[in-house]
């Protein structure tokens, strides 16, 4: 016979669960004010809905070029700086790095015609130009995250002279690897029909992301939360994360359509037939040093989608590093925060030493 908890034990556990649930609900209300984004920063440039932020230093400046973080369009960038003890940006600042961050903003109906050409060749380039001019340098260190990593690869291939070192984090490159569930789901989507009705709602994307692991993401995580009912700090952490997860901007229709069709459906980036703004994106033109950080347990961007980069770029200095965590764990988990910032800082120092 399978040893199962006896009736008394079950009754006790259920009673305990009910009691903790009773504590958790009001405590969660108390934690509702918890906000993401903790480090001081100021806007140095804005254009349309885009804002370029520069973070205030937290340590003596390291002798390194500034780092520009290019985040994805599908979520808000404060995930990189969620709270003091869970902030990749804070760790970089403490190492003396000069950090800039692009906030793409929340596109509305007037932005529906913004395409990848606008985001990469215009917006991203404006930010790079602004930093180059401010520091009187010829090239920046570019750190691209998730979809922002894909954008950074495209940008570097198009403007190789403006990027000194490239770091990609959980960035998809091969969009059709067998583990990529999201990719399988979008193959049959009629993109024109989808974007005909305007911007794609962030809520719809959230639904798709939740559907990747529905039992864990819509049930188990909330049941597990009850265990932290008497831990205010844990509840606040949970609420910050919960707010971030569902703080999903709508996607500009044109850019979304292009991203789904060109990248997910046609896999053009790796096939070498991608053009943005009429210019071919040739990954072989990326000859600068590249650090590729990917998560070994990533359900959104499987490792195989990221590691494909090694075979496509022209760089002789390519360092792939797998971190034993999930997609979001890269920025907030203990493993991610222990390993990712130090890998970035050490790698940038070693590259600077070679300049």
């Amino acid at each position: 016979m399978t040893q199962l908890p006896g009736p008394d034990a079950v009754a006790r556990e259920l009673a305990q669960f009910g009691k903790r649930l009773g504590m958790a609900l009001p405590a969660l209300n108390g934690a509702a004010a918890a906000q993401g984004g903790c480090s001081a920063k100021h806007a140095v440039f804005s254009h349309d809905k885009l804002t370029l932020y520069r973070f205030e230093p937290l340590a003596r400046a390291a002798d390194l070029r500034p780092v520009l973080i290019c985040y994805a369009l599908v979520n808000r960038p404060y995930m990189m700086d969620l709270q003091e003890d869970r902030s990749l940006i804070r760790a970089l600042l403490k190492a003396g790095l000069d950090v800039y961050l692009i906030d793409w903003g929340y596109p509305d109906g007037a932005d529906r015609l913004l395409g990848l050409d606008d985001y990469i060749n215009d917006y991203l380039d404006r930010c790079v130009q602004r930093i180059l001019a401010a520091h009187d340098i010829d090239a920046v260190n570019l750190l691209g995250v998730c979809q922002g990593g894909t954008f950074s690869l495209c940008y570097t291939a198009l403007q190789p002279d403006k990027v000194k070192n490239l770091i990609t984090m959980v960035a998809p490159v091969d969009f059709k690897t067998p583990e990529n569930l999201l990719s399988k789901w979008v193959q049959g989507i009629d993109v024109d029909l989808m974007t005909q009705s305007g911007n794609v709602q962030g809520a719809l994307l959230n639904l798709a992301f939740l559907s990747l692991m529905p039992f864990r993401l819509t049930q188990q995580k909330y049941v597990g939360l009850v265990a932290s009912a008497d831990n205010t700090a844990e509840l606040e952490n949970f609420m910050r994360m919960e707010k971030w997860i569902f703080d999903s901007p709508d996607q500009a229709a044109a850019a979304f359509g292009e991203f789904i069709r060109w990248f997910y459906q046609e896999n053009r980036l790796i096939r070498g037939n991608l053009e943005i703004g009429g210019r071919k994106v040739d990954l072989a033109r990326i000859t600068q040093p590249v650090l590729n950080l990917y998560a070994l347990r990533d359900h959104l961007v499987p490792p195989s989608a990221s590691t494909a980069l090694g075979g496509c770029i022209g760089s002789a200095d390519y360092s792939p590093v797998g971190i034993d965590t999930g997609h979001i764990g890269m920025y907030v988990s203990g493993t991610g925060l222990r390993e990712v910032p130090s890998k970035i800082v050490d790698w940038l120092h070693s590259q600077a030493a070679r300049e």
Partner: protein
Amino acid sequence: MSESHDPTGAWREALAQGQQAFLKFYAEQAPGQPMPQFAEWWAKFGAPKTSPGPDAAGLYLAACDHFYALTRAFMEQLPKQPNAALDAQSLAKKFQAGLEEWFQKSGAPGKTAWTQGLELPSLGVTRQQQELWQRVLELTKRYQELQSELSAQWSAVGREAAQKFGAELAAASKSGKGFADLKSLYDRWIENAEKAYSAHAHQEKYAGLLSGLTNTLNEIKAKQRELIECWAQQFDLPTRTEINSVHSRLKAMQQQLHGLREKSTAKRAAAPAAKAKAKPRAKPKRAARKPARKR
């Protein structure tokens, strides 16, 4: 227990009594006044049918009757003796088959009504709108079919998750391992459910259903927008198509402006450089000319 043999009959009777009371109350409150549309509809709901065609209450009650019969048949198969052996698997299968039959039957009347509406030709002044409505109805029907298929997939996921979970419990039993608490059992259930789901979710069929649903829903949205635009045009209200057209023009102008600015900046940057380049070239010329003058 006469109501247990005809529960919908009792329901129908209660409904009729309620309607009688309502009509009496209405007549007292507004003597001689015509009945408002909603009140008229309510008074007729569930009344005996006098004309052919779909009857909402009748269809609903027929479905209730069928479900009741199915449940009764299932209960009758349960062993009468408390200690008799229970073949749960075959009973569950019979109940499932009955449910499937019920779902098929309950969907059939609606299907006929849909088909009749969709087969009518679009004619006259409002031909375009009629056609759009028909397409919306067709798509809605298609959406419901796909939704049913997806539900079937989810049922299969649930079944397979239960099988996997059961197999894990059996394996734990053999190895003598136990589960300390309900939470660990629950976590194992979630793990097995995710595995069962993942096996389906990665299949082409599942992906096809998801994209089919998305495409159908998007087309419904697009057609509904067209209908709204037809209406808006009648009142000279701005439409999304018009706004999109303005956006396109604005974007083209912005791009032109951006291009002109870049050209102008490049020209300004190139001018001093050209001047600087021009000077050294001029020197040797002047230098060459000077001796000539001297001569």
